[in-house]
C-alpha cells in the first residue's frame, strides 16, 4: 500500500481494499495461533490519541499494535497537556518528537486527523472524527461481510437509523459501493442527510471519473434512500443497525425513542423479510430494545461479535501495510 495515512475510504480503490482484506485474513490466522505475536513492527512506536470515549476501537488498536510487536502508548485528552490548553498540532508534533512512527487518532471534531496528517511525517490513522469518517470500522465491516458472503458484487446492504450523525455509515458507504454493493440508507427523513444519493454519486465521479472503476459496475455502486424499513429489508443481504446517539439528539429529530423503535427498530419480523441467511450487524455500542431487539442482536444471523473480533485482524493489517508504505521500498 503506497499511502502515508488512512483518513477515510473515499480514496481507496477496489484493489487497495482487496489488499487490506487479504492481509487481514493472514492476520486472523496469526490470531488463531498459540503464540499470537509476530515481529514485523518491532522497534516502531504507535501512539493512540483518543480525545473521545471508546472501548472497542482503542483496545483493538492497542492489541493490534502489540500483536505486531510495536510499542503502544495511549494518550487521552484528560491527564495530558490538552488540559493545559496545548493545541492539537502541538500535541501531536510533540508525540512525533518523542518518536511516534504512527498516530491513531479519535477526535470529536471532523477533520482533526486530516490536520494532523498534514503536519506530521508519521502515519496517521483516523479512528473516528466527529460525524465524518471511521475507516477502520468500515474495513472490519467489509471484512466480516466478505468472510461470510464472499463477493460483494451486487449485494444489497441496508444501513438503518441515524445516518446523519454516523461516521460509520459514511465510511461504509464508500467501502461497500467501491466493492460493487448497493447501499440502501433507511431511517427517519430527519436523520438521512438531504441529497446524499447525488452527493455520493458526485463524490465517486470526481474521484474515479465516469468510467467503470476497477471492474465495479456503476449501476450497482450506488446509494439509495428508503424511508420504509419493511420495504428496505426485502432482498437485503446485510442489515446494519446504527446506534441512536442519544448524546447527539439535542435537536429533537424524532418524536420519541418508542416511536423510533417501532418504525426503525430491527426486529425478527423485519430480519425475516431479508434474504435467507442475511447478516445482522451493528457497530456497537448497542441500545438494545431501541435500534435492535436483543433476540436479533444475539440471534443466529447476528455477526456483531465477529465484527469486534475481526477488528483486531483488520487493524493489524492496516498497521502492517502502513509501516511499509512510505519508509522502505515495498518489493
Amino acid at each position: 500500500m503506497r499511502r502515508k495515512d488512512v483518513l477515510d475510504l473515499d480514496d481507496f480503490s477496489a484493489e487497495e481494499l482487496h489488499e487490506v482484506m487479504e492481509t487481514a485474513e493472514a492476520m486472523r490466522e496469526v490470531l488463531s495461533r498459540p503464540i499470537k505475536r509476530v515481529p514485523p513492527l518491532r522497534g516502531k512506536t504507535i501512539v493512540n490519541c483518543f480525545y473521545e470515549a471508546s472501548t472497542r476501537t482503542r483496545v483493538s488498536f492497542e492489541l493490534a499494535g502489540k500483536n505486531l510487536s510495536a510499542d503502544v502508548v495511549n494518550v487521552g485528552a484528560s491527564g495530558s497537556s490538552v488540559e493545559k490548553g496545548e493545541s492539537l498540532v502541538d500535541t501531536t508534533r510533540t508525540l512525533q518528537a518523542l518518536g511516534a512512527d504512527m498516530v491513531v487518532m479519535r477526535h470529536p471534531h471532523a477533520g482533526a486527523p486530516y490536520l494532523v496528517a498534514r503536519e506530521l511525517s508519521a502515519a496517521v490513522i483516523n479512528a473516528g472524527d466527529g460525524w465524518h469518517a471511521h475507516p477502520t470500522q468500515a474495513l472490519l465491516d467489509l471484512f466480516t461481510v466478505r468472510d461470510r458472503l464472499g463477493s460483494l458484487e451486487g449485494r444489497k446492504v441496508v444501513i438503518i437509523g441515524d445516518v446523519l450523525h454516523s461516521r460509520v455509515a459514511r465510511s461504509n458507504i464508500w467501502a461497500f459501493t467501491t466493492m460493487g454493493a448497493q447501499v440502501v440508507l433507511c431511517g427517519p427523513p430527519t436523520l438521512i442527510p438531504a441529497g446524499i444519493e447525488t452527493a455520493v454519486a458526485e463524490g465517486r465521479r470526481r474521484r474515479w471519473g465516469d468510467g467503470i472503476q476497477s471492474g465495479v459496475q456503476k449501476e450497482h455502486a450506488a446509494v439509495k434512500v428508503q424511508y420504509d424499513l419493511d420495504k428496505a429489508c426485502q432482498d437485503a443481504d446485510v442489515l446494519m443497525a446504527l446506534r441512536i446517539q442519544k448524546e447527539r439528539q439535542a435537536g429533537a429529530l424524532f418524536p420519541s425513542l418508542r416511536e423510533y423503535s417501532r418504525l426503525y427498530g430491527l426486529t425478527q419480523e423485519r430480519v425475516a423479510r431479508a434474504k435467507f441467511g442475511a447478516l445482522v450487524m451493528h457497530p456497537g455500542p448497542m441500545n438494545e430494545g431501541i435500534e435492535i431487539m436483543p433476540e436479533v442482536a444475539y440471534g443466529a444471523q447476528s455477526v456483531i461479535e465477529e465484527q469486534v473480533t475481526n477488528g483486531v485482524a483488520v487493524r493489524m493489517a492496516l498497521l502492517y501495510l502502513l509501516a511499509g508504505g512510505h519508509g522502505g521500498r515495498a518489493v
Partner: protein
Amino acid sequence: MVAAERPILDADGVRRALTRIAHEILERHQGAEGLLLAGLRRRGVPLAERLAALIQQFEGVAVPVGELDVTMFRDDLQTRGTRSSLQRSSMPQDVTEARVVLVDDVLYTGRTVRAALEAILSYGRPQQIQLAVLVDRGHRELPIRADYVGKNLPTAQGEQVAVRVQEIDGRDEVVLVHQEPASVQAPGVQAPGVQTQEAHSRGTHSRVAGQPGEP
C-alpha cells in the same frame, strides 16, 4: 545484455529428486508417523504437497501439509519495508510433538529458513524440525543446513536460480540464469528478460532466487 538460462533439472529430474527425498524422509524417520510437511510460500507449498503424495504412494500414510508465509518474520522488513504480498498461513494440526519438515525450493542465504523456524515455533513446540530443499545453491549467511537436498548447485552470487513448478508456472524445471556478457551487477538488480519479484509475486512468473533476502 542478455539473460541466458542453463538447464539444471528438467521435469524428470525434478521428479527423481523429489522421489529420492521422499524415500530419504521415510528412511530417516522409519515411516511417516507423526510427520508434518510445512511448505514455504510460494513454491515450497506445491513441493511439499508432492512429497506428501509420494509418501502416500510409498507407505499408504497421508502426511498433513501446512503452508507458511514467513514474510512477517523476515529480518529485512525494517530495511526493505513491509510487503503487500502477505498470504494466509495454515497449519492442518497442532505442531507440538510433531516432526516437522520445512520444504522450500531454493536454499541460499538461510534467512528465509531462519524466519520459517520462528514462524513454525509460533504454532507450538515440535519434537523436531528438519529442512528439505530442491536446490541448495550455497552462499549461506547463517548457520543453517538442509537435511534433504534435491540438487547441490555451486553458483556465483550474481547468478540466479529459477525453480519452476507445474502448479504455478505450468512446467517443472530448474535453470541457472546468468547474464551475458558478464557484467558487474549488484545482487537484487535484475537484467531485462528476468522476471521480477513483483511479477512473480502476482503469480504469473516463475521464481528467480537470486537476491539475498528474497523469500
